[in-house]
């Protein structure tokens, strides 16, 4: 009987699934093997026309899929062995929690068909798969037809605009709502719950403080608005964006493509030069080569400005000594754990040093600031050439230079915009920060200053940066990334009643624990959902917007105040 069952395609709740093993041989049929928590493994499920990758991507939208450390082709489903994941599961992440808490109800055969069919790549995210059904289970008792799904999306957008708070999934666990409308009313005034529970934090072991509902539940929002991430742009596809002489034909389409998947590493050099603006989209291969050679000469000239300073002159040149000293100190502690910069006498360290010192002459007013070596490091890693790195860094600093201004105005304007965005996208969280005197958002200082360089693994940093540089959707996607992360952890932050110091520590310690694909999707959803209201939160000229000569100004009043 059991054996019979094994060979029948039937619905399996994700809660029962331990892992999925993927087999995608170069020749022959692809298949997957589903292993249940009980240890029972299903026989291979063949995908006769490919689609395993899409299948995994689709599953990823609905459950937490972790690649096994032992085997690259094994994906662990909702694996909360890892402490961070466990922590996450204690938050109000609907998909994770619903799977572990809601008793597993096998879904009906009709629904499972879409899951078993490997061909399905573009699943309607709101109405797609068993886990989604489960995730919305309680609501779906009332809500079933597709028209209602669309209205739900609209409602989400509407609730944002009107700042109506929406029911958070956490609510499901605090109280069982009787009707949808009472939730809307309750949401907006739920902050009193925090005020009344000023218990000493030390008593806090679990999450005793009711967390005000998230007006825009991140998971639902991301499913509704964020598109699944794509594989990085590869060589073949890249060629389709170019004409015979190497010009990018449709820069908008290219930027969009990169936004959703990034770029394969071997293409990065070529693509980054364009994204950063060092090379133009319209340049032919020949023009790019010409630019390279011109710029190389120019670089050497600027570099020579400091190289020609004699020891005697240096003695009398305090400013130069100071800068050089700072750069020397930082170069030897920049990404030394990466083999590219590791070991003694590594030539790449001298390249870092040379580019930074040359930049401090090129932009003498700004000079060298700590953090710049972090921004240059991935660029040099990709370019593997001093002059090219220098000019790409110059282009990057055109945008991020204000982060390092002496008066810190670039940082302040971004932190201010961030606070406005949080206010727009999560009023209860904003109020919480206000109550805790954290509205300066210093907790996010490092995130913004270094564009998450210190928070992510090296390759993830490169992925994030190329996505940010596309400026698809917004020049300020990084701020939405901040909001996405804060929202992701809002339950923990508010639930544990974090103060400025604990919050700072918590945020700092997120470093290395951020899943950039999930976060980007959240950020995209938030950005789309915020729409023009979001853009209005960000004052013109806020980095990384270029200084305003080519910015489009639609608000003449603001224009005047600047003049």
């Amino acid at each position, binding site marked *: 009987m059991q054996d019979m069952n094994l060979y029948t395609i039937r619905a399996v709740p994700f809660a029962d699934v331990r892992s999925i093993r993927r087999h995608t041989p170069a020749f022959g049929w692809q298949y997957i093997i589903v292993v249940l928590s009980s240890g029972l493994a299903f026989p291979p499920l063949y995908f006769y026309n490919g689609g395993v990758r899409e299948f995994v991507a689709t599953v990823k939208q609905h459950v937490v899929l972790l690649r096994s450390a032992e085997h690259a082709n094994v994906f662990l489903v909702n694996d909360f062995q890892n402490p961070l994941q466990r*922590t996450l599961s204690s938050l109000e992440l609907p998909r994770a929690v619903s799977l572990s808490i809601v008793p597993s109800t096998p879904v009906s055969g009709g629904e499972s068909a879409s899951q078993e069919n490997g061909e399905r790549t573009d699943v309607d995210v709101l109405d797609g798969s068993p886990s989604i059904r489960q995730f919305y289970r309680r609501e779906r008792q009332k809500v079933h037809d597709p028209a209602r799904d669309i209205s739900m999306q609209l409602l989400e957008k509407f609730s944002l605009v009107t700042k109506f708070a929406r029911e958070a999934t956490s609510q499901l666990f605090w109280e069982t709502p009787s009707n949808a409308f009472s939730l809307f009313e309750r949401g907006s005034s739920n902050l009193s719950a925090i005020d009344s529970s000023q218990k*000493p*934090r*030390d008593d*806090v072991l679990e999450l005793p403080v009711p967390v005000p509902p998230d007006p825009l539940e991140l998971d639902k929002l991301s499913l509704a608005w964020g598109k699944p991430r794509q594989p990085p742009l590869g060589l073949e596809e890249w060629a389709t964006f170019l004409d015979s002489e190497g010009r990018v034909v449709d820069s908008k389409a290219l930027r969009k493509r990169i936004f959703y998947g990034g770029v394969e590493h071997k293409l990065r050099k070529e693509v980054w030069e364009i994204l950063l603006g060092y090379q133009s989209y319209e340049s032919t291969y020949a023009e790019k080569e010409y630019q390279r050679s011109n710029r190389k000469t120019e670089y050497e000239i600027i570099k020579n400005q400091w190289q020609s300073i004699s020891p005697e002159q240096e003695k009398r040149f305090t400013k130069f000594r*100071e800068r050089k*000293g*700072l750069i020397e*100190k*930082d170069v*030897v*502690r*920049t990404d*030394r*754990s990466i083999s590219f910069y590791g070991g003694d006498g590594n030539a790449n360290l001298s390249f870092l040093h040379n580019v930074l010192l040359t930049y401090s002459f090129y932009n003498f007013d700004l000079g060298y*600031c*700590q*953090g710049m*070596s*972090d921004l240059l490091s991935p660029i040099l890693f990709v370019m593997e050439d001093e002059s090219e790195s220098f000019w790409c860094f110059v282009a990057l600093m055109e945008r991020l230079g204000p982060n*390092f201004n*002496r*008066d*810190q105005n670039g*940082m*302040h304007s971004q932190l201010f915009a961030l606070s406005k965005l949080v206010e727009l996208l999560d009023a209860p969280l904003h109020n919480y920060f206000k109550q805790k005197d954290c509205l*300066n958002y*210093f907790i996010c*200082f*490092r995130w913004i*200053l*270094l564009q998450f360089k*210190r928070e992510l693994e090296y390759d993830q940093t490169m992925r994030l940066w190329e996505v940010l540089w596309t400026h698809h959707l917004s020049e300020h996607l990084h701020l939405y990334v901040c909001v996405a992360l804060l929202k992701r952890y809002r339950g923990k932050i508010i639930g*544990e009643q974090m*103060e*400025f*110091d*604990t919050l*700072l*520590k*918590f945020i*700092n*310690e997120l470093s290395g624990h951020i899943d950039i694909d999930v976060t980007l999707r959240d950020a995209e959803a938030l950005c789309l959902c915020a729409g023009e209201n979001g853009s209005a939160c960000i004052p013109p000229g806020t980095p990384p917007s270029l200084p305003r000569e080519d910015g489009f100004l639609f608000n003449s009043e603001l224009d005047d105040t600047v003049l």
Partner: protein
Amino acid sequence: MAHRVDHEYDYLFKIVLIGDSGVGKTNILSRFTRNEFCLESKSTIGVEFATRTLQVEGKTVKAQIWDTAGQERYRAITSAYYRGAVGALMVYDITKRQTFDNVQRWLRELRDHADSNIVIMMAGNKSDLNHLRAVTEEDGQALAEREGLSFLETSALEATNIEKAFQTILTEIYHIISKKALAAQEAAASTAIPGQGTTINVTDTSGNTKRGCCST
């Protein structure tokens, strides 16, 4: 989570690390709180802190040590950094004269931003690099005396005097606070100002209380 395990303490003291970039603030912090040292540790961006709980004259003291970038450029965000700090370890590098010369600037910075009763200790770090020494111990001692600071030469690499430096600061803070508490007790019986009774519970949720202890 790990950061809320140790909450059994009598006092919480916030101490800031200051000094030029590259003098070894972060390694002093990691040596003291985790007994770790890393030659290639990254430059500090923004603000970080770590804690360690230890005994000071029979009391359990949780030391919260704050670390920030040395570069002057980032001073704009340091208001939050100094808020509530009751101690400061001002660090220079004995192999770099400039970092010693800048001590005066750091003192000014403290006077401008920190509580006026903040306990300051000066540390000449990297004493393991004696062969590269650019500041004599006597110079350090003399400056410390002139400015009324405690002073030690330290080595985070060799773990020399790190423990002692913090013990010294913490003990000094504890003495001041006990005296305040005593004074408050004598003068008190009145309203519920911070520090009534013999024990001042300076918890990490009450920056103001801490300030009260030192400045009132």
